[in-house]
């Protein structure tokens, strides 16, 4: 994927050439050392292959014994006889909470990235970058604790507002006004806070790479700061911001503890995001694992496999976009 690696050490035109060639390695020290490092690489591959094989075997075992439809069943009753479980609610809840997180986090993250690169007084830029890094370093369980004990009570007012004024959109309608907002919406807000740093940091790097010449071109035409950003910065940084968002999405999809603590989960699939209920893959695994039977565990592994594939696709898409962008910016450098 990152083919740049190949070009990292420039083609040696010097004595190094001999040592770079594989046959040049003759000394035992060299052989051991290159063996160790190559072995580590191979070990990684074996590890990943093993992950795929074991997850698939266990998952297949569970799905073959499922008396429901694994894709469309709402319930998760893997411990009962006959076992009935499906990922419909989990898939829906995972996507909805992640979409909410993205809708909140992406604009704010791009805003912060622009703030750091174009708006902040210089004295503020450095400390702010540090604050963002701290935000990234806070463990997810602490976010979960804060979300459940601080954010949930404080969001009560906002959710009843949304219900009151925007209830007609169905999405923001609350079936029982006044219930604690332990719902997908709150989970989405918490996820937004958690993925903010990664989107901000990647976007900031991309925005920094916008050549000064493009911005000067716009400025010299008499563009205001915003017009400069719109004409020169955002078009150039767009694909990078998209892939940053995808990386954030990958995080949001797999986040466990923040959702477990904030969401009061159920087998319900509803468009009312302010109603408690629903669930996500990760939270479902964490909350059902304790009492799971042997088949129950395999069922959870099957759902984990689905989550794995989804995050894999999202992250893969992000990397493809980044790789494309490299070619693109290289051509214009």
């Amino acid at each position, binding site marked *: *994927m*990152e*083919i740049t*690696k190949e070009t*990292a*050490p420039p083609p*040696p035109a*010097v004595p*190094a050439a001999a*040592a770079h060639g594989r046959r040049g390695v003759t*000394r035992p*020290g060299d052989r051991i050392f*290159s063996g*160790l*490092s*190559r072995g*580590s*690489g191979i*070990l*990684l*591959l074996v590890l990943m292959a093993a*992950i795929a094989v074991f*997850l698939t075997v266990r998952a297949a075992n569970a799905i073959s014994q499922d008396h429901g439809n694994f894709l469309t069943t709402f319930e998760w009753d893997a411990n009962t006889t006959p076992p009935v479980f499906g990922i419909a609610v989990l898939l829906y809840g995972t996507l909805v909470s992640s979409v909410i997180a993205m809708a909140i986090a992406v604009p*704010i993250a791009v*805003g*912060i990235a622009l703030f750091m690169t174009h*708006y*902040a007084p210089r004295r503020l830029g450095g400390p702010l970058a540090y*604050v963002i890094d*701290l935000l990234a*370093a*806070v*463990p*997810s*369980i*602490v976010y*979960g604790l*804060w979300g459940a*004990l*601080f954010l949930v009570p*404080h*969001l*009560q*007012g*906002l959710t009843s*507002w949304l219900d009151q004024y925007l209830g007609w959109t169905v999405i923001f309608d609350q079936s029982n006004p006044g219930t604690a907002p332990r719902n997908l919406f709150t989970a989405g807000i918490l996820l937004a*806070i958690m993925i903010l740093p990664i989107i901000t940091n990647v976007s900031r790097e991309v925005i920094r790479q916008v050549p000064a010449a493009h911005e000067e071109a716009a400025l010299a035409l008499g563009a205001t700061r915003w*017009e400069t950003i719109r004409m020169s910065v955002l078009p150039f940084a767009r694909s990078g911001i998209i892939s940053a968002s995808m*990386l954030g999405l990958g995080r949001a999809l797999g986040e*466990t*503890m923040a959702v477990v603590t904030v969401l009061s989960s159920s087998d319900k699939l509803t468009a009312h995001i302010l109603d408690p209920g629903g669930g996500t893959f990760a939270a479902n695994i*964490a909350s059902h694992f304790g009492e799971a039977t042997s088949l129950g*565990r395999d069922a959870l*592994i099957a759902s984990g496999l689905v*989550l*794995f594939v989804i*995050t*894999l696709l999202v*992250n*893969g898409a992000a990397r493809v976009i980044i790789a494309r962008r490299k070619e693109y910016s290289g051509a214009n450098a």
Partner: protein
Amino acid sequence: MSDIMTKNPRGTDPLARPGVLAHRRMPRWAPAGIAVAAIAVGTALGLALGLSSKIQWGLIALILFVLGTYVITAAVEDRRQAKDRVVTSAVWACFVVAVVPLYSLVETTIAKGAKMINGNFLSHSMAGVLSNDTGGGVYHAIIGTLEQVGLASLIAIPIGVFTAIYLVEYGRGKLAVAVTFFVDVMTGIPSIVAGLFILAFWILVLGFSYSGFAGSLALVILMIPVVVRSTEEMLKLVPNELREASLALGVPKWRTILKVVLPTALGGITTGVMLAVARIAGETAPILLLVFGNPMINNDPFHGTQSSLPFYIYEQYVLGTEQSYDRAWGAALVLIAFVMILNLVARGIARWKAPKTGR
């Protein structure tokens, strides 16, 4: 050429009256003034309407700030300036929105956690402590975290560093491409999936039981890609001239890497490793699946269940009593302090050892 003169696009622009570069502009303090006014109105509305949550106050103030900027600038200056100023105020608002949750989180954790931190809390386990008893402590969880993270680091750091060396110094052809690809894949593995894998492999297939070490194995999966990536970046920063100079002196390649390349990049590698340690120290999900929790002190990570700080926080949160919430906040403060200290030291090393190639 006179053709273009008559079609002068600025003919329609009122600002470009000949010889007039200046136009009415808002005073320099205007944005700050609008911000203060918006906050005042937000607070007043919040009080008047009896809105319980400060989040609502803040949202009202933010919306007023952005809208107010537009309306006032459009009136005093013009639409273009208004748009520019709105974006400026929106971007500032984003900054505030980012800082507020972090501040709130840190403030809440310190306020609620600090009163728990004392010698007793740090030196006792939860053995025999019921959920609504006061007392109890995190000693067993600290032991668990240190051992699990320590073991994970012992395994992940060598594998990660060697893999990075392979990619930068030896890697050619298909194997290197595959390794790079799968490191990317590993970066995106959700922690709970890493836990599930070790569960499927270590416990369900190989038949080992729950233990601190099983948790470490999952942490290894999460840690390796971080170590590989950061080490790789640092190794790439080492100028090729250094390698060539050493090789040209007849130093074997492995000694060149060991004596020239690694020491040059050591500061950056250390930073990356510490950040990776800080990251896995906060992982809860795999511990939940693999270590299973234990209220008592278990110093042996290879036999029997253990606890860990993140797991302890979750466990106490689930109990749901006043006393257990207090313990959760106390543990959260200990965990944050641990992670932040690692971060601070890591960044300190990065700054101290920073290669001069940085921007």
